[in-house]
């Protein structure tokens, strides 16, 4: 599903070059549920941005769903994001002026889907996340957990091949976090590939595989870098 080889991403200012990803390689098979972990500044979000075609990268090869997406135009990247990738953000990223229905509708409209099909998909997705009765509620009229469920409904309705989740439970209490993880588990069981960035060992434990990043590279937690001794191993 996702194949990255020797990806390099450098952030430049006038004075400093920051190597956010360095010779970054990772394979994620279709149907996998992978948790990406690592300390702050390890490159988790940069990986997510590159994997989600939100940002460009300098070197290396990235294949998504067996298609090389390393050198696409902005328009082509928008098209792939819309067709193949679903995003779940830490702060939900709902449009505050739009109700549940219109928020879930956004990616479907960009896909040019007929109104009838959109409506069916939105209502079905709202049912799956348990918010059928709140189709015309604004984000401000919902709790954090409900808002994240709307974001998940937005992904479900679009039915992408790959879901990229950025700290999906980071802004939720433990009860709501468990509900969200249950939903993600359910989605993964239906066959959708999920790559989730998280700081939470509990959430990571729900994934089928954990990937640890450090200084922009994937590391082997059994043999962590000398600087941090066995800290990462013990975290696992």
């Amino acid at each position, binding site marked *: 599903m996702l194949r990255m080889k020797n990806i390099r991403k450098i952030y430049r200012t006038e004075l400093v070059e920051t190597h956010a990803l360095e010779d970054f390689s990772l394979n994620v098979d279709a149907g996998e549920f992978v948790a990406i972990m690592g300390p702050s500044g390890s490159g988790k*979000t940069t990986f*997510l*941005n590159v994997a*989600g075609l*939100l*940002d460009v990268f300098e070197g290396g090869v990235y294949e998504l769903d067996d298609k090389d997406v390393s050198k696409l135009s*902005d*328009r082509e990247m*928008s*098209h792939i*994001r*819309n*067709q193949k990738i679903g*995003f779940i*953000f830490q*702060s939900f*990223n709902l*449009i*505050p*002026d*739009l*109700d549940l229905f*219109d928020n879930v*509708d*956004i*990616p479907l*409209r*960009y*896909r040019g889907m007929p109104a009838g099909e959109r409506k069916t998909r939105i209502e079905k997705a709202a049912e799956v996340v348990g918010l059928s009765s709140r189709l015309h509620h*604004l984000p401000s009229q919902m709790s954090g957990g409900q808002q994240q469920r709307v974001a998940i409904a*937005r992904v479900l309705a*679009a039915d992408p091949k790959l879901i990229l989740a*950025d700290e999906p439970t980071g802004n939720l209490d433990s009860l709501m976090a468990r509900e969200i993880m249950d939903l993600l588990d359910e989605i993964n069981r239906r066959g959708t590939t999920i790559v989730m960035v998280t700081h939470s060992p509990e959430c990571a434990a729900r994934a089928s595989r954990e990937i640890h990043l450090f200084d922009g590279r994937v590391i082997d937690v059994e043999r962590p870098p000398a600087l941090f001794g066995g800290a990462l191993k013990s975290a696992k």
Partner: protein
Amino acid sequence: MEFGPIIRALKRNKVRFLLIVVQIAITLAVVTNAITMIRDEGQKMLKRSGFDDDNIVWVRSKPFSPAFKDQAYRISTVNADLRAIQGIPGVVAVANTNFLPWQGGGSSGEMAVGGGDGSKYRTQTYTTTPGILDALGVHLVSGRLLRDTDLDDDPNSKAPATVIISRDLEKLMFNGKSAVGRQLLDSGNSISNIVGVFDPFYNPYGWPIHEYAVMFAGHVSRSGAMYLVRVKPGTMKQIAPLIEKRMLQANNGRNIQMQTIDEIKDRYFTQGRIVRGAMSMVISLIVLVTGLGIVGVTAFSVTERRKQIGTRRALGATKGAVLRYFLLENWIVTNAGLILGVAAAYGLNILLVTKTAGAKLDWRFVVAAVVLLWLQGIIATLIPAMRATRFSPVIATRGE
């Protein structure tokens, strides 16, 4: 197209967008009516009086000698002036009259047809000696000219006055029939005999009676005599000093004031020029302010929705879709403003027409202003909307 979601989102942000809607509506109402006023003033300036304006000079005798307190003395002086001025080579005609063109007013009264149904017609009314038509350069179209024997200077006279009237007044009051030989009744039921009809006549007035005039036969001398003198083309500069000289030779117990009709006309249109200038300024300013208002609101809206734009991009919006979103949003707001503005434009015009005798709104100005403001809305939105398309989708994963 995202009509539905945009309209629903706008409803939830009423105040901000309502201000722009109202601003566009006011702009349309003011601009269309201001253009109408400019056009109206321009048309007034192009309007011809039908008089030989270039060759007429207005002369006023302002007496200081006590002898002028006597009416007989005043009238004999007027007659002497008329003879003196007429005797100057190059003078075509002279009349002693209180009519002075291009003042934006004069004197007026209500007249009814003698033996008619009693309907009253407001018309301009002036007093003059016989030479008036030649002095103005207009023509007698029926009946006869005024004569010296028609002059009646007795304020207590019960005899009917003798008058000539303009052809447009004849058409108005006599339904296409000849007015010669008919009578007019003024508001005090005094009778006047119509002996002639002249044409053309146009003198701008406060009421819409610019083409209607009644000229009574009589001298005008009470607070200083006034004359209209018409000279041969190209001789004004030489003759004007001679007129003053001859009048003072005839009687030096007074001062002489002179103005050409061109000067009077120029002064009359000064106000119109100021109105046109002021209205042009108002149009430019209000259009500029509205344009800046749209730029400001859209720019604020783009900055405020930075994260939303990033999210939309992450969910698959192309740069074109982001641009389209803002243009469509502005298009809806602009159209709402224009619909309200058309109603406001006609509402304001009804007020101007009924309260200030303003000109009626021309629908073509409304269409032109709608197109102008519509284009302005697109252009003013384009700059901030283009900025929105440059926001990276990476914004979606950044913290608030």
